[in-house]
């Protein structure tokens, strides 16, 4: 069997259980391919030399490219980003910019994954990355992050960062109470 038509014809005559197995096999392979592509796209972004300074409110080339990868690869890209951001030798500036970007994105399909990546990054080793995670969570404005932010505040060794996280917590609590009162 060499052509797609021949493979389709062969699949057509399979008994139903084997057709189901074939579908599962293909789905697994497709997922693996997507993960591999996302991993290499995200790694490429972090391995490149960026000679730009990241400034609040100015769209960086890195941010634009990262958003494209996430829009294209979806949750696989967020998974890949999570492992890059948590690596001990990560470029802190890029990791921080990436966390701010995923907080700002308005993409319902990856919302939950982005939320958990940001929550996890609150406990990273670099203060700059923890700060960016809290800024990202403030942009995402999802009150489900409240327990994590409280834990991060309790764990935080830097008083400056702790104060900034408290501000994020306050905002999330306000959003929570607005959402609760609009439901009533």
């Amino acid at each position, binding site marked *: 069997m060499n052509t797609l038509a021949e493979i389709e014809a062969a699949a057509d005559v399979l008994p139903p259980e084997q057709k189901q197995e074939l579908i599962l096999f293909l789905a697994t392979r497709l997922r693996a391919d997507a993960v591999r592509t996302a991993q290499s796209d995200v790694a490429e972004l972090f391995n490149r030399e960026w000679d730009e*300074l990241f400034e609040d409110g100015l769209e960086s080339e890195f941010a634009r490219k990262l958003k494209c990868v996430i829009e294209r690869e979806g949750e696989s890209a967020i998974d890949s980003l999570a492992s890059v951001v948590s690596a001990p030798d990560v470029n802190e500036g890029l990791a921080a910019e990436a966390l701010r970007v995923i907080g700002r994105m308005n993409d319902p399909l990856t919302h939950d994954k982005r939320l958990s990546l940001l929550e996890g990054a609150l406990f990273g080793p670099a203060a700059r990355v923890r700060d960016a995670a809290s800024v990202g969570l403030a*942009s995402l404005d999802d009150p489900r992050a409240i327990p994590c932010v409280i834990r991060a505040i309790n764990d935080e060794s*830097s008083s*400056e960062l702790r104060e900034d996280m408290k*501000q*994020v917590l306050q905002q999330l609590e306000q959003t929570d109470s607005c959402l609760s009162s609009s439901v009533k």
Partner: protein
Amino acid sequence: VPLVFRKIEKAKWYKTSAVPWLAPDALQADALSDLSTKGNKLSVYLVEDELEALKRLIAALAANRDFITKLDYALFQEDSLSNLGIRVVEEEGDTPDHVVNTWHRNLSEITVEKIVSLAEVIKNSRKERVLEKRVRALVIHALASNQIDSGRMKLGAETIADLERSVCSN
């Protein structure tokens, strides 16, 4: 007494409790990127009435960006500049708020030594953060009260349309 306002990124000014490799009282070198000069000039704003002026200034600066996001800044006494021998020149700003533009000053004839001294002043100054959601609310307020000329905003068309919808629904 007017205060000097300079946009910064707070994380670059963290002290040793947040950055373990940093010696006590030292500053991260990245902090200098918040003080990058153009033509040996550094842009700042003078604010007289702290609370209201700050809100207006933040809205004007936010409207001058690509997108709405948090804004970090440092505030310090104006006399710190004269103590450092820094020349302050009145020069109109380029925000969409013509009143805020009159608060703009350029710190001129800046040398490396003066930048380092200024970094010391900022290190010990008040540093604040306004989160994205609050920044957005301030821009909406500034638009609704005609402080900002919407035609001069640098924000993306989609963001401007969204802000204008919010102004109408308020």
